[in-house]
């Protein structure tokens, strides 16, 4: 189990003591370029964390993409990760289900735990981990197989269904929960790639929840979608929160505000600020966060 770290990572955004607070007129160039070390301000911990990340560093070869990030993802919570392009949001989220293992030269340091168990420990099987921490990618990437097969695949390889009827049940209920069943119930045998972009993304979500993971990671799931499809997925996220914990990367501040309870702002590989979504958007502590959410940088 983790030692209580509240003393170290608790609320440290004391305005009178922190030099980088909102309200200062200018940021130095070093601060803008992330060449100095920020201390994360806000509420990095969560009372009931499902994932806890402590002092995480990620390197691509010699380049450091994530610098000393500490963050919790709470149970049944939606947390959004925001920040300018290239700040390391995708890199961070991919640490949580060890997708970075598949990248040549990527190296992850630090202590990352799922339900208290370190996921980078030797004895942890990334295959099992990824069944527990599902992922939805930026671009819809259904398999070039039928709609049914797309959703059934995860259940099949993990041996979740003992009979055809059970498999049907998993597939149909996952599609139902992804809000796609009505649209595709007559098209089960058509290729998943023949669906529209928004349907494909919901198919990918159905495929992920069919495995019944504990956490779902979403990397800009709506960036390729129109507002209506986006709204459907946002409704879906709200609903999925009953059963899953969700970390979502997004470039849309409105989306973050609509779907998430907590928001984390990344800047140049560092976690600058994290807190309740309303606080971060309406009353940010850090000057960089304020600049970003008010549209001055990013």
């Amino acid at each position, binding site marked *: 189990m983790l030692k209580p770290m509240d003393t170290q990572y608790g609320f440290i955004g004391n305005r009178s003591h922190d030099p980088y607070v909102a309200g200062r007129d200018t940021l130095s160039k070093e601060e803008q370029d992330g060449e100095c070390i920020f201390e994360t301000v806000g509420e990095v911990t969560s009372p009931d964390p499902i994932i806890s990340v402590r002092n995480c560093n990620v390197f691509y070869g010699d380049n450091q993409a994530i610098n000393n990030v500490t963050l919790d993802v709470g149970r049944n919570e939606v947390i959004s990760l925001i920040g300018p392009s290239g700040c390391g949001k995708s890199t961070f989220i991919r640490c949580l289900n060890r*997708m970075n293992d*598949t990248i040549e030269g990527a190296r992850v340091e630090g202590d990352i735990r799922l339900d208290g168990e370190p996921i980078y420990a030797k004895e942890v099987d990334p295959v099992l981990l*990824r*069944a527990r921490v599902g992922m939805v990618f930026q671009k819809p990437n259904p*398999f070039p197989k039928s709609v049914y097969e797309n959703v059934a*695949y*995860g259940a099949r390889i*993990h041996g979740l269904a003992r009979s055809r009827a059970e498999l049907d049940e998993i597939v149909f209920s996952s599609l139902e929960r992804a809000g796609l069943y009505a649209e595709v119930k007559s098209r089960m045998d058509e290729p998943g790639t023949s669906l529209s972009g928004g349907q494909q993304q919901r198919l990918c979500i159905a495929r*992920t929840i069919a495995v019944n993971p504990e956490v779902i990671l979403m990397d800009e799931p709506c960036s390729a979608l129109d507002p209506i499809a986006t709204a459907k997925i946002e409704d879906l996220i709200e609903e999925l929160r009953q059963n899953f914990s969700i970390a979502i990367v997004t470039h849309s501040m409105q989306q973050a505000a609509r779907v998430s309870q907590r928001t984390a702002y990344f800047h140049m590989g560092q976690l600058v600020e994290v807190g309740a979504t309303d606080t971060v958007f309406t009353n940010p502590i850090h000057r960089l966060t304020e600049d970003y959410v008010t549209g001055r940088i990013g």
Partner: protein
Amino acid sequence: MSEESPSNSALRSSVETRKRVEASLGARYRRENRFRFFGLLAVLVSVSFVAFFFVSIISQGYTAFTQTYIQVDVYFDPDVVSPDGSRAPDVLSQVNYSRLIKDGLGSMFPEVSGRKPKQLLNRLVSNGAIYELRDRVMAEPDIIGSRESLWFLADDEIDAWFKQYSRGDDADGAARLGDAQIGWLRQLVAQGRLEQRFNTVFFTSGDSRDPEMAGIWAAAKGSFFMLVVCMSIAFPLGVAASIYLEEFAPRNRWVDLIEVNINNLAAVPSIVFGLLGLAVFINFLSLPRSAPLVGGLVLALMTLPTIIIASRSAITAVPPSIREAALGIGASPVQAVVHHVLPLAMPGMLTGAILGIARALGETAPLLMIGMVAFIVEAPQTPLDPSSALPVQIYLWADSPERAFAERTAAAIMVLLAFLLVMNATAVWLRSKYERRW
């Protein structure tokens, strides 16, 4: 924008920009037209070469698909066939059947006398005729004592004469026949005793010293066995190697070295593979010489680099998002490859493999090294029997002095081309069958 900004000098008025673009247009179009012209020229040149090749091969070879037959009245003389009345197979198989043909021809041309003219007369009929007679008598011994008009293969020179004669060409001048023979032939034509038929012998028999009895069946079967051996070894090995290199191998100096070597191997002259096969399969592993098994193994070695290169590019062409999707829901790396990457890469792999093997099928040089340049009459029953191969057969016939082998060479080339055409068509078919543009 401040005065000293470097981009400022590059900014021009839109009028100026437009002028400059227009000035450059003429030269651009000229360059484009020149490029298209040379492209078209290149295509035309290659098409005309191909056309020339096809026309010359077909015009030389099409005559080989018919063969002249000659009708002879045969009397199955009991005194010759079974002087002691025995009809036991071992007796009937020893009979001097050429006597029956000689007597038959003699009765048709009673005026011919003397040893030399009679010899010439007997040479109208192919040497193979006696085997036909023997088989006939042994199958149907009751025929002994009766008379029958039988059609026999004509000798290759007669065949050449008759083909030219039927076409209305100057057959007599071109033929290597004496006046007497031509006289007999004209007589036979007048009696309707010469006939052209479809040349089944060419497709059903093995090699022979007599062109009229030589066929490609043995060589084609040898080639087919080699194809099967080559495909069943090179394809799985090539695919496995490419998957390992592309998906699982660590990126380090050793793998780079292997990669460079594979690319180099694809360019190694084929005869070197023949030497390798001789050393490894025949001298070291003591596999039989001249066998399609060894030939197939050698061709497999030869095509392996090509298949690996083609398969790797097919794997690289599979979008990485598919792999990520599979890994993302907890497929193991092997599952991701087998379930998702491989099916998508398969058409490309198959096409590469088939084209590589089709290329190898036309190879002669490595087969010379492992003793497949043999005179093979019997078609091989298994891949371990001595055999030749189509390109080797072509090479052997092209080297033979008899004129009739020239047309057979061209015909064999046509058969080889048909073989390759079928394989390429299969590649195209497989591609369209498995390629799902989803």
